[in-house]
């Protein structure tokens, strides 16, 4: 999946008109980045906050963006960092534990409002939440977003080999959880 070519129009527009170029960035990437963040942070309000921060950071640094790199990987790297910093902040401050999504979604009004998956989906999300942080990110990016290992390597600053191994371990763990091993 070559994500670089479709961004040439954005890069050209950023060169000539920064404001219009950035509007195009937002149009093209806001929804995709929202879902990327949402799968990591689970809660809608957190995803919304992290997404806003992602674009504010992108806007702040857009002048320093080098056109030889990809807008797509650059934005995903910012979004991933924002999601992780929000998760770490929530771990320190929040009384709500999302270790068991099933219990949380059924016992809280907020949970039942923002999740309408069936039992299998709930089990999958619970299994994903039990993965170590890095494996969870890699699994989400590969399984739900079908991202290439090469793009993930740029975003997560990790070698392709390490990412493949990480995804392999994540799949094994999830299979074991779902089959009750």
């Amino acid at each position, binding site marked *: 999946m070559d994500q670089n070519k479709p961004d040439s129009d954005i890069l050209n527009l950023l060169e000539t008109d920064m404001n219009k170029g950035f509007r195009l960035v937002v149009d093209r990437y806001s929804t995709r980045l929202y879902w990327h963040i949402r*799968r990591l942070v689970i809660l*809608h309000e957190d995803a919304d906050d992290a997404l806003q921060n992602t674009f504010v950071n992108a806007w702040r640094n857009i002048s320093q963006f080098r056109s030889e790199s990809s807008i797509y990987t650059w934005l995903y790297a910012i979004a991933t960092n924002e999601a992780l910093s929000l998760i770490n902040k929530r771990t320190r401050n929040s009384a709500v534990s999302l270790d068991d999504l099933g219990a949380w979604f059924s016992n809280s009004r907020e949970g039942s409002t923002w*999740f309408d998956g069936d039992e299998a989906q709930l089990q999958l999300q619970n299994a994903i939440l039990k993965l170590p942080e890095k494996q969870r990110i890699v699994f989400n990016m590969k399984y739900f977003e079908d991202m290439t290992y090469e793009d993930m390597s740029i975003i997560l600053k990790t070698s392709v080999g390490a990412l493949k191994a990480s995804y392999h371990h994540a799949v094994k763990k999830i299979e074991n959880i779902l089959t009750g091993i």
Partner: protein
Amino acid sequence: MKKTDKIQEENPFKVPANYFEELNRKIISSTVEKGDEIRKPGLYLKMRPFLAVAASIALLAILSYAGIRLFSSRNEALSLSSIPFEEYTESILEEIDILTLEENVLLLENPSAEPQTEKKDIIDYLLLENIDINEIQDQL
């Protein structure tokens, strides 16, 4: 991973109604519409390329000036003997007194010649300076 394959395409998470319709407007209002106030770089970073060019030009100018000065002073030293006598005397006339000028003229005309001073002239000069006559006789 058969058990998860069938749920891969489905998205169990929900968002508020019209969330995505409002999302872009919200992002634009907190970024583009706030303008440059939150955007890096500041004036310095914006001007940095121009400052770099200006600094390079200034450095080039200083080096050129120093080079020209060095080159021209060397030329001056090397060609001093070839300067016509009249031009040399005119150029230093305002800077030195007439006695020093006479000495310089003598040196220019005959560089190997040393100034000759009569013993009588030296005694007269020392007496004018209130040196004791006995001491003068001892020294000379």
